[in-house]
Structure formats: C-alpha cells, structure tokens
C-alpha cells in the first residue's frame, strides 16, 4: 500500500539550545515512517550538523534569526529533511572544496572544520546545499526494506 506524502514543518530559533528539539522531532517522525534505530541515529547527527551550520554561520553579526525545518516523505518510502535559514549564505564550496575526513593525516594537520558537511554526506543517501537568499540543506534517506532489494 502506498502512503500519501506528508510535509511537517518546524520553525526554531537559530540557537544551539533548540537543535535538540529538531532531533527529537526527527526521531518521532522517522519512527512513524518506519526507519530503524540505527538509521534514525545517523539522521539525528546529520540534521543536527545542518542546524549547527545555520546556528553558527547564518546570523553571525546580524539580528538573531530562525531555522525552518521541513520533513517530507511517506511512510515506508523515504524522508527528505530541508533545513533552511535566511541568513548569510554559507559558502560550502569556498570552505575547502570537497569535504574531507581526518583519515591519513598527521595529528598536527587534523582539524574539526568541515567535518559537519562530511558527516552529513557519510550518514545520508543524498545531500544538497542550495545557497540563494540564505542557505537550504536538503538531506535525503531512503528506507531500506528487507527482502525487497534487488
């Protein structure tokens, strides 16, 4: 049975103390749509990294703003999470091109910058970053169904 696509919106202040609300909401929605514990744990980290970027970069030296999170998808299919701010566009490309992990570097060369976007890409099936008026990060994960894979 195919379920109808749903859209659930949540707007929170661009403040570190509200990122956990986004994680908790994701937990509830992803559980309802059939994702496993492990998949949800991965998505919690990815969505929080997208929110962290908005909290840290979007409204720097500006009036405090908001982060709009939209969860779209259908039960048993996939989830698409849009994390959008209206602050300064975060230049992912300029911040070091391809996001890198820390593998095969010397200790003095490792740094945490850029790990957030790397983790989003590693933990989700697809990550899109749209910078226009503000930044929108769209994270997608498909539901892995047992016995239906080719």
């Amino acid at each position, binding site marked *: 049975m195919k379920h109808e696509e749903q859209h659930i919106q949540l707007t929170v202040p661009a403040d*570190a*103390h509200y*990122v*956990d609300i986004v*994680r*908790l909401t994701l*937990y509830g929605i992803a559980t309802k749509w059939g994702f496993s*514990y492990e998949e949800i*744990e991965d998505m*919690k*980290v990815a969505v*929080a*990294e997208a929110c*962290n970027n908005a*909290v*840290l970069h979007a409204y720097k030296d500006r009036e405090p703003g908001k982060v709009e999170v939209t969860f779209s998808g259908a039960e048993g299919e996939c989830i698409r999470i849009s994390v959008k701010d209206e602050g300064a566009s975060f230049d992912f490309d300029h911040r070091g091109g391809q996001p890198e*992990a*820390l*593998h*095969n*570097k010397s*200790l*003095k060369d*490792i*740094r*945490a910058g850029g*790990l*957030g976007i*790397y*983790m989003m890409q*590693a*933990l989700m099936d697809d990550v899109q970053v749209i910078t226009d008026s503000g930044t929108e990060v769209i994270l997608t994960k498909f539901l892995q169904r047992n016995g239906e894979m080719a």
Partner: protein
Amino acid sequence: MNREKFYITKQMTPAAITISLNGELDLSAASEMQADLEPYVNQSGRTLILNLRNLHYIDSTGIGILIRMLKQRTAVGGGFKLVEVTPKIKKLFDITGISQYLDLEVAGTPQERKEDIV
C-alpha cells in the same frame, strides 16, 4: 528515548583522572564541557581518561573538542585514553577518521550491548 542534559563526573586516583561524559554532547554543551575539562587537560602527571559509557550523542562540535584535547595532551606529554566507547559513538569516530589518532577501548561485549539497547 534517552534524553538528558549533558554533564560530567570526575574520579581521581594518583595515576589517573577519569572523567565520565553523560548525556548528549552537542553544540549547546560544547563550551561548558571545554571549560570544565580545561583544568585537567594541561596536567601531565596523570593519565586523562574519558569514560564514554553514558555518552548518548556526539556531533562534529564534540569531536572537535576531542581533537583539541588530543593535541593538547600530546603537547604536554600526558596520557589520554577513551574507554567504554559505545558502538554508536565509535561509528562516528570511524567515519570522521578520528579513531586512528585515539587510544580507545570499545564498551562491553556484543551480549551486553544487546541488553543495553533493548
């Protein structure tokens, strides 16, 4: 689901300082944790041990703090070890690549973890 404010507890012996991280280490908890741990990070006399058994969540901010601690411990020549790292947290350490720089012990046996998750 398990949801609690982040906090640390400390245990000191002549040879080591063990700091247990509890709850969710995210952007909102990062600066507080860094300030709490600062006094111990530059002490080279004892090994600094972080117990991660009750750490339920970490993001890149938390991993960034561990990277800075590791560099500081290396600079002062003090021991630095992570113990009882749960598979969920270890997975993020492996993905980011920080595992290769850390002296870490994974928590429990698979049997124990199963009980813990359920």
